[in-house]
């Protein structure tokens, strides 16, 4: 077991990935699945943009357009951005704190498979009678009125994948709380670890409201309850509140890890420690906290009354302050530094102005009285794509280039990387800048077409052209990935040369047991400290000993599969005359609970890699 990958057949590799509990392999899974869903969401976005290229276009029908935009939003947020971030967290965070693994390797794998099956379930709606069509927010009155099973797919798919995300969150939290290497105090943790920590806490508190509201939606649609049915005493505003109590923290779940990634990149490529580290940490926590106090800024026009609107408006604007602290700290990290314009750094450089613009329009939206104009227009669409694409997606591209060597042992091509950046950056601004104005000129969002003569034609045309540039950028990065994977030139521990944190002190890719001996951390930027003192690597904090490893397991896959099956039963049992629904529910749940029971009855203590084998590995490790 302790000898690392020799050449193995496809079947063996597949089986390895289906059963792996290694955080680095799970990261690959997240990256692959998240990447797939990103392309899917991107194609949906392209369809949206093509439909809107000119007035009265009939590229897609009205109903199909609504399905597209719903699935675009849902896919991008739940199945692309978040999983991709979880992927990088999995790949890097345990290394950054010098942990052997995550706290719950089994749960880690279960979390992935739940997300994956949830996502697959959601997307199967395309083939089984139509996708959800009430927007990613799925506001209750419309989603109750929506015919067919689209919304049921949404509800059940998100429920399943939401459980997975929740598990991922708890797992990261416990890992960070309990498994930091000796000397790695909280205030020595790299910023990406900190943002992982805060984002995971947000997951922990934001997903339960979503879970509850999705359950209620499911009960309403499939089991006859009346939470949102006004004629039975129900109330649709409950859904809105729940969705945004979840939804607003959700956007910070996305952006905080992105902030973390850029914090690492700025420090490394300007060869300077992060300016104002402690205030960065403070700002991160504060953003996380305030993130729970502002949700109603999505509901200014709902009619909550001036008092609530005023309170939430002011609270919303307050978030500008900690975010501003971050922006300026980044700028002053660069200030006085020695900046090298690698591809990850280019994304970072592009990120600052792009995100800034999205952020300030956010504060404009926060001005409740003015939001009556902005709300549900393309101004909002522009705002959130500026923060999400300019912040989160940029960070994902940056992290892909930056961590690719650590994850796969080979560098992505820098030239192609820069081409991707230029195409995507220009395309991005072309697409979304003009949308601010489209909104102000009176274009509501979520419209499948618009009439000529309203002054909206040129803007939409420009916007669509930009989207094509973005697509081209994405295609270049795909080519890049394929090319470099085929070439597969191996790199050493610290391929960027300026690595500061622990993940760069270990081989690329790291051995499956991570650090042979836990490293001793002597300060912030632990690896940098050692390098500056002329040392090659980290000082070990413990003598070489046996390493305890968890066993691979197929059970997470089966548990998730069971829920996937049960979800079909839940959905179709509500159809008139359906007879197989209930049995399928029982079957699915039996698979899930049966495999859970099996797992808990059979003790699995893992195995140990012996000291001697570890010493052998010394030589087999990748040459620097």
């Amino acid at each position, binding site marked *: 077991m302790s000898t690392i990958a020799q050449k193995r057949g496809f079947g063996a590799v597949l089986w390895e990935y289906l059963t792996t509990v290694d955080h680095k392999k799970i990261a690959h899974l997240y990256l692959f699945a998240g990447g797939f869903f990103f392309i899917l969401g991107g194609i949906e976005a392209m369809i949206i943009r093509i439909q809107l290229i000119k007035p009265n276009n009939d590229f897609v029908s009205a109903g199909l357009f609504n399905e597209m935009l719903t699935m675009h939003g849902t896919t991008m947020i739940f199945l692309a951005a978040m999983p991709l971030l979880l992927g990088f967290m999995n790949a890097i965070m345990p290394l950054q704190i010098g942990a052997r693994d995550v706290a719950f390797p089994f749960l880690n794998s279960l979390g992935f498979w739940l997300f994956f099956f949830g996502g697959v379930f959601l997307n199967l709606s395309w083939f089984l009678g139509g996708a959800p069509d009430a927007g990613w927010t799925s506001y209750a009155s419309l989603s109750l009125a929506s015919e067919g099973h689209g919304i049921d797919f949404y509800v059940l798919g998100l429920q399943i994948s939401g459980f997975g995300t929740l598990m991922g969150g708890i797992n990261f*939290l416990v890992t960070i*709380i309990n498994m930091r290497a000796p000397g790695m105090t909280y205030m020595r943790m790299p910023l990406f670890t900190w943002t992982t920590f805060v984002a995971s806490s947000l997951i922990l508190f934001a997903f339960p409201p979503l879970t509850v509201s999705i359950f209620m939606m499911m009960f309403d649609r499939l089991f006859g309850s009346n939470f949102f049915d006004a004629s039975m005493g*129900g109330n649709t505003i409950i859904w809105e509140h729940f969705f945004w109590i979840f939804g607003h923290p959700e956007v910070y779940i996305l952006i905080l890890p992105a902030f973390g990634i850029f914090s690492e990149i700025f420090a490394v490529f300007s060869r300077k420690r992060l300016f104002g580290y402690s205030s960065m940490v403070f700002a991160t926590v504060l953003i996380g906290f305030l993130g729970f106090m502002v949700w109603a800024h999505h509901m200014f026009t709902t009619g909550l009354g001036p008092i609530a609107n005023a309170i939430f408006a002011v609270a919303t604007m307050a978030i500008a302050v900690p975010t501003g602290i971050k922006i300026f700290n980044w700028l002053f990290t660069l200030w006085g530094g020695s900046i090298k314009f690698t591809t990850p750094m280019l994304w970072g450089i592009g990120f600052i102005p792009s995100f800034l613009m999205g952020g300030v329009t956010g504060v404009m939206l926060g001005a409740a009285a003015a939001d009556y104009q902005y709300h549900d227009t393309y101004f909002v669409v522009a705002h959130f794509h500026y923060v999400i694409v300019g912040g989160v997606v940029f960070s994902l591209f940056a992290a892909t280039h930056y961590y690719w060597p650590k994850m796969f042992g080979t560098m992505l091509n820098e030239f192609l990387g820069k081409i991707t950046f230029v195409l995507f950056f220009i395309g991005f601004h072309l697409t979304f800048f003009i949308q601010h104005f489209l909104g102000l000129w009176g274009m509501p969002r979520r419209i499948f077409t618009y009439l000529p003569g309203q002054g909206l034609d040129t803007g939409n045309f420009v916007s669509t052209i930009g989207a094509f540039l973005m697509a081209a950028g994405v295609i270049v990065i795909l080519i890049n990935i394929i090319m470099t994977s085929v070439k597969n030139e191996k790199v050493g521990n610290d391929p960027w040369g300026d690595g500061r944190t622990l993940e760069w002190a270990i081989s690329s890719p790291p051995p499956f047991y991570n650090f042979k001996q836990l490293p001793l951390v002597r300060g912030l930027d632990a690896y940098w400290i050692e390098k500056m003192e002329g040392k090659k690597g980290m000082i070990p904090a413990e003598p070489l000993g046996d390493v305890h490893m968890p066993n691979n397991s197929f059970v997470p896959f089966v548990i998730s599969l069971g829920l996937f099956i049960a979800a079909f039963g839940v959905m179709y049992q509500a159809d008139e005359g359906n007879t197989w629904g209930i049995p399928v529910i029982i079957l699915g749940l039996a698979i899930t609970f049966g495999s859970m029971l099996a797992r808990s009855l059979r003790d699995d203590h893992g195995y140990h890699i012996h000291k001697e084998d570890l010493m052998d590995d010394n030589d087999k490790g990748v040459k620097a």
Partner: protein
Amino acid sequence: MHAEEKMTLEKWPASPEKQTLEGKNKFVGFWLFLGGETVLFASLFATYLALKDSVPNSDMPLAKDLFEIPLVFTMTMILLTSSLTSVYAMYHMKNFNFKKMQLWLVITVLLGLSFLGLEIYEFNHYVHEFGHTFTSSAFSSAFYTLVGFHGAHVAFGLAWILALVIRNNKRGLNLYNAPKFYIASLYWHFIDVVWVFIFTVVYLMGMVG
């Protein structure tokens, strides 16, 4: 230290639930989960409070028509007592007294079962006496969802504790299963915490009007 090692009283640590890294992880992880559960139940309470007595027509029963003190009081006493019995179980775990721990856990399970039985009776009563079903109004949906979620937690807790008791009956205590017992008892207490708010907010406040 290997977790499944046979234990003796002398070697038994003061906090067996946190002795191994796995134990510590379980312990912290479970508490975090409870933090999330707090929000989950708060959401359900919020929904209930928003929809309380919200019925489509006025001859449907309201909270003050439904609830009666004796039944709720009995259920409350049973569940509170079961909290104490599970504390006893943990007390014996700390003293490495496996037999007694098992005994108290079984008692806890029995109390939990009787609570559940009463709850089923209660729901049945509402349905048949008042026509207060899950689908009859927003109020009823919210009521059954909140109380039912709690009931489901009770049922799950019972199954969990029972599984632990049976599974480990032959093996005795060790550092591998001590954390499992410990977090199961935490779970049970948490269920009790939720019930305290349920009987206060749903039943007592319901009866006040």
